[in-house]
């Protein structure tokens, strides 16, 4: 499958320039902007009419973009089916008064063509409806079956233009699909697009799987399998399906996570009841033990530059977060609040560490600065666990499970204001977000 998407800037068409000139001088307005760090106090109203051309494909693409932007919580897509301006030609300037009347501050319009050679071409433009300025004009070409990815790329471009942050829509999520009851769970490794489309099982449920994670290349995952005979950490190439393990250890192996350059895997090895952190160099196949404390040391996660590892340990009496150099030196505790802290994950931007926190009878997903400062709890429920960062470091996915034991995937932004169920509605746990796809 060819996943390459050509990405080129559309030169502003002559038609457009002429009609812009013909317009009465517009009232000067500050350009629209979405401040992601403040969360969506009020999401930005946007109009995303069906793209023209190529049968229903233009409507499909607009729908995927609408879903993405709506789920981000930063945008409010409006129902614009009855707007008179039908935008049949992407190279003709929209009739802005029509769009202003809907209340939309931004307009996304586009046109889809499929060539005789089967090449899908999507031209789209992003407009500020009130200043009547074009904010983006891009063309994407790909294979026809790749239309969803084109829609995700457009969503990312719009998100980036309006928020100043990279998008996270052209991504996948690997997770554990669950079925059965609390006393007899069946767990299958699964993968899907971030919007829940194209779900696929990677294992058959005949053994327990947990904690899958992506490598930085997004072609490789690692996960833990648990059978009555013991545990195994697998590394699996998603393209070739080639699978290897981190090797044999006398006790349990668990909690694997790739280094940012994809050349190492950190994980826990248990021996005689004591869990320590090891790092395996995938090239030399050498494992190095980097913690030696007689306490639980687990859930290692590298900093984006690979120089540090945050992990969870109960060496202080109960589970807290610690940061050390990647060789195990210089350990220092970073969490000091009441309660138990587990599953730390370093943001791909390097500015925050996300974690699970347990206080009293409740669980929270939270973030703190990498020195432990500015702790912020984003969620509260019976059981919230296992945050994973979107590649832009501004959104987290995690799983939430009620007393009845049916886990579901949720997302929350780093302000905690935008909390909502993920697009995938099946029972699922242990999500891991991929980096942006190529």
């Amino acid at each position, binding site marked *: 499958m060819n996943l390459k998407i050509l990405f080129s800037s559309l030169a502003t068409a002559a038609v457009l320039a002429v009609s812009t000139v013909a317009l009465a001088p517009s009232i000067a307005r500050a350009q629209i902007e979405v401040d992601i760090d403040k969360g969506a106090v009020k999401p930005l109203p946007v109009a995303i009419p069906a793209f023209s051309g190529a049968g229903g494909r233009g409507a499909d693409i607009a729908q995927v973009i609408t879903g993405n932007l709506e789920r981000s919580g930063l945008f409010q897509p409006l129902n614009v089916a009855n707007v008179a301006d039908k935008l049949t030609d992407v190279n003709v300037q929209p009739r802005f008064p029509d769009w202003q009347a809907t209340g939309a501050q931004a307009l996304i319009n586009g046109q889809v063509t499929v060539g005789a050679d089967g090449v899908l071409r999507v031209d789209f433009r992003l407009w500020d409806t009130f200043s009547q300025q074009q904010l983006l004009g891009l063309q994407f070409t790909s294979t026809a079956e790749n239309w969803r990815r084109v829609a995700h790329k457009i969503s990312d471009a719009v998100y980036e233009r309006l928020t100043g942050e990279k998008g996270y829509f052209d991504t996948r999520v690997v997770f554990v699909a669950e079925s059965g009851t609390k006393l007899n769970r069946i767990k299958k490794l699964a993968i899907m697009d971030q919007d829940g489309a194209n779900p696929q099982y990677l294992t058959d449920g005949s053994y327990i799987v947990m904690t899958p994670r992506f490598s930085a290349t997004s072609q490789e995952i690692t996960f833990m399998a648990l059978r009555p005979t013991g545990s195994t950490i697998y590394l699996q190439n998603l393209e070739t399906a080639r699978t290897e393990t981190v090797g044999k250890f006398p006790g349990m192996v668990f909690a694997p996570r790739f280094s940012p350059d994809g050349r190492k895997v950190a994980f826990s090895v*248990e021996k005689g009841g004591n869990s320590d952190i090891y790092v395996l160099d995938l090239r030399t196949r050498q494992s190095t033990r980097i913690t030696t404390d007689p306490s639980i040391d687990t859930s290692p996660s590298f900093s984006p530059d690979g120089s540090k590892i945050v992990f969870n340990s109960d060496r202080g009496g*109960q589970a807290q977060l610690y940061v050390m150099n990647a060789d195990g030196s210089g350990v220092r505790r970073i969490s000091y609040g009441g309660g138990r802290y587990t599953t730390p994950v370093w943001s791909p931007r390097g500015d925050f560490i996300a974690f699970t926190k347990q206080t009293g009878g409740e669980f929270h997903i939270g973030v703190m600065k990498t020195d432990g400062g500015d702790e912020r709890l984003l969620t509260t429920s019976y059981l919230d666990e296992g945050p994973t960062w979107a590649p832009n470091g501004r959104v987290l996915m995690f799983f939430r499970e009620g*007393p009845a034991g049916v886990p579901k995937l949720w997302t929350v932004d780093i302000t905690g204001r935008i909390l909502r169920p993920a697009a995938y509605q099946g029972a699922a746990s242990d999500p891991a977000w991929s980096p942006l796809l190529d």
Partner: protein
Amino acid sequence: MSFDTQRVARLAMIGLAAASLAACASRPKPQGPVATTTPSQPSTPPYSQPTGPNSPVNTGVLPGTVQDFVINIGERIYFDTDSYEVRSDAQPTLGAQAQWLNRYPAVRVRIEGNADERGTREYNLALGARRANAVREFLVSQGVSGARIETLSYGKEKPIDGGSGDDSWAKNRNARTAITDGAR
């Protein structure tokens, strides 16, 4: 084989007899003259008290079997929250497990450590491993060879009580001594 065949044949005959009785019962009455005799009482009562010896039959498990271990010794002990210390109330069970294992030296076991759902998955795997190891050490201290004992942690993956309160969680914080080989 021949016994089974005979038995099946006899059952089939009984079945046929029952079927023909049923057929008689449902057949429409003949149109001819109606007999006026009153039905006689059955010569034997339709139900009789069971006869024979009154002493009960006791069922028991064979010594040295998995059932013997599970029923008469107990395969699980329980732990406090976030703890892997063998509680005093668990020591009699583990002592009995050790005695039993010493009596049946061919038996091999896997200690499975379990945690309740009030912890995160990876931490609970580590906690379950500690619990399994605590049981292993206890059994070894009572003379069971360590070579006969393997350990595994299921973390919070294998609850035995599906509830969501203190009582359920208390049951789910356990270590199970599972016989993997050598039982009679």
